[in-house]
């Protein structure tokens, strides 16, 4: 006590002899949080090292989920890729693996993400544009041709039709002779953030969550090495949320999946170790690092203390990170290499398990091979040149970082209370709570940019008029025609009676409220298309209509 008072006195006399001298500038984080001119032991006086920070690999895991972190194993360098046909993307995968990438990550095109076939009118102009077009198992087989699924882990960014795509992945494994139990990888499969932020949905929220639980249950029983859900803050942030909202809303989603799985009768330790997270790493360096550290501690505390998970692996918040797409600028696009490098560094200092670095041209179009290579090299420079991997959590104990971490955790708990008062995440979605919070934050930030209270270099300051001059990857319209040809030929040559039978079985299973996974797998094996399977379930589960929250 006496000592603390002395420190306070010292601080006060230091402050008085060095009065604050600020430039005319808003000293707030990207999310608008006030930042003090200096942090000292006074700011973390309430923090207990053993209770709140601890050693890496030990509860509450603030400093990292593994004792040795990157000294033991580097993060997985996983570049999200996908465009054109399955053949085009397969070629890009082989290239990336040959360049030292250590895991695959599939980007699907919009029609696939919405459970729409390439020959549907709604898909017009979008086939293979922002990801790879997958209509049936036939495309999936080509996508993974020459890639041994027992050795390469694959992350698949898909949500509303995630159960269908998981079934396709299992079926490709079968063709390669790899049993489901051997498959490793991650399915994004986080439908709640679709209603909140990314807006690629098919079924109403409750039914969407039912399908997520189906995959959690199925993988718990048959695919012990596979991560069925990647609870994603990335898209919430991209939609304009603050760092705190990203943390709080995403973790609230995660807890909803836990609750729904428990309701299904699953044991917490049978599935919690397979849940993982996916965060955004934005440009405000310390705010991001604090977010990652707070997320780890929150999840550990909630799983252990609130849910009573016994297996320490249930307490671990493993996460993938992607640098912030929205932080990139079309103006002076080369600057994006620098932004991405700093964001990637924050993710590494925050203890990520895997990382995607954006390419400098992604704000303009799909990345070119050259731009992807620079993005991958950025990770390699951080891993092999900077030395930040030599010690675990090098920023642990920094007054500012610890104080920010605590603030993040407290802010998230406050949001949890509000969400609970509303009646939970589903009610919050129906009432537009999250949507409005995010739209408000996005609007506020846009204002700050336009009033130049926040700066984006090359956009509202340090502008030059040079035309944007970097190569752009263009998707040949022929891709769409070729994909449609392939699909229509498939529909002619497959056993259509078998397709119809298996689709009817999917529908019946959905109507009986049974786990649809085994039935989807049968349909996939019969080469039913993604839209046929989606529609079969939609007939029973209904479809979602978005409420307008502007």
């Amino acid at each position: 006590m006496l000592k603390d008072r002395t420190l306070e006195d010292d601080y006060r006399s230091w402050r008085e002899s060095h009065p604050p001298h600020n430039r005319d500038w808003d000293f707030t984080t990207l999310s608008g949080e006030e930042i003090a001119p200096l942090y000292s032991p006074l700011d973390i006086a309430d923090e207990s090292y053993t209770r709140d920070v601890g050693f890496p690999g030990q509860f509450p895991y603030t400093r990292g989920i593994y004792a040795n972190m990157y000294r033991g194993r580097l993060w997985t360098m996983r570049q999200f890729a996908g465009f054109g046909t399955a053949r085009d993307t397969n070629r890009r995968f082989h290239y990336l693996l040959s360049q030292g990438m250590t895991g695959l990550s599939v980007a699907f095109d919009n029609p696939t993400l919405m459970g729409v076939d390439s020959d549907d009118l709604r898909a017009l102009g979008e086939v293979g544009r922002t990801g790879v077009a997958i209509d049936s198992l036939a495309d999936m087989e080509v996508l993974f041709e020459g890639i041994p699924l027992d050795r390469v882990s694959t992350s698949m960014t898909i949500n509303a039709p995630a159960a269908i795509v998981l079934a396709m992945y299992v079926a490709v494994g079968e063709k390669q002779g790899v049993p489901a139990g051997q498959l490793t990888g991650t399915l994004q499969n986080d439908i709640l953030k679709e209603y909140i932020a990314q807006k690629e949905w098919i079924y109403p929220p409750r039914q969407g969550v039912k399908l997520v639980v189906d995959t959690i249950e199925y993988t718990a029983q048959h695919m012990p090495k596979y991560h069925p859900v990647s609870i994603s803050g990335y898209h919430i942030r991209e939609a304009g949320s603050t760092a705190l909202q990203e943390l709080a809303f995403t973790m609230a989603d995660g807890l909803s999946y836990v609750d729904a799985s428990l309701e299904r009768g699953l044991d917490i330790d049978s599935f919690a170790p397979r849940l993982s997270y996916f965060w955004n790493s934005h440009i405000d360096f310390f705010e991001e690092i604090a977010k990652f550290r707070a997320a780890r501690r929150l999840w550990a505390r909630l799983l252990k203390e609130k849910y009573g998970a016994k297996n320490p692996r249930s307490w671990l918040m493993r996460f993938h990170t992607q640098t912030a797409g929205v932080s990139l600028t079309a103006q002076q696009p080369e600057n994006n290499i620098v932004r991405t490098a700093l964001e990637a560094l924050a993710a590494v200092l925050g203890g990520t398990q895997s990382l995607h670095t954006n390419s400098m041209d992604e704000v303009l179009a799909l990345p070119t091979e050259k731009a992807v290579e620079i993005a991958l090299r950025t990770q390699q420079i951080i891993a092999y040149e900077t030395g930040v991997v030599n010690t675990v959590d090098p920023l642990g104990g920094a007054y500012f970082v610890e104080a920010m971490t605590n603030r993040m955790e407290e802010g998230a708990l406050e949001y949890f209370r509000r969400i609970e008062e509303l009646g939970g995440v589903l009610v919050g979605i129906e009432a537009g709570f999250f949507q409005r919070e995010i739209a408000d934050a996005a609007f506020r930030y846009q204002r700050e940019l336009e009033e130049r209270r926040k700066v984006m270099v090359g956009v509202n300051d340090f502008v030059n008029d040079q035309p944007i001059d970097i190569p752009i990857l263009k998707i040949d319209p022929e891709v769409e025609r070729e994909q449609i040809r392939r699909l229509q030929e498939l529909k002619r040559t497959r056993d259509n009676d078998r397709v119809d039978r298996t689709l009817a079985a999917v529908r019946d299973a959905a109507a009986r409220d049974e786990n649809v996974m085994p039935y989807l797998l049968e349909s996939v094996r019969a080469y039913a298309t993604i839209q046929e399977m989606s529609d079969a379930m939609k007939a029973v589960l209904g479809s979602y209509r978005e409420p307008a929250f502007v």
Partner: protein
Amino acid sequence: MSEPRLRILMAKAGLDGHDRGVKVVARALRDAGMEVIYTGLHQTPEQVVRAAVDEDVDAIGLSILSGAHMTIFPRILELLREQEAEDIILFGGGTIPEDDLQELKRMGVAELFTPGAYTQEIVEWVRENVGEKAAGGSAAPS
């Protein structure tokens, strides 16, 4: 009599769900005193044009971030012509490369805003280009 106000239809066409931009712009136009009619996500060109006609808007603001701009913008222009509604101004925004942008403007898209555009810039553009035309050439008797 109530003051004639600009009516703008803000729409998302195609399958992408990125609505951050369209919502920010909708709010900015509202704050500038306009009536904004929002159609929501995942609309077909047919739905957008029909809504524009029924709502008798002065302009359509279309947001596309899916790469389908070279398909969707021309289709909407074509449908506007079919509905004898060419006087409804079509503008838009999204991730659109420079040469596509020039091509779309040649086809008749009045203006395109790319990432980084200020909402105030968009508001000003609407005031100058849509407002002027609406004031001078409205077919409504008044």
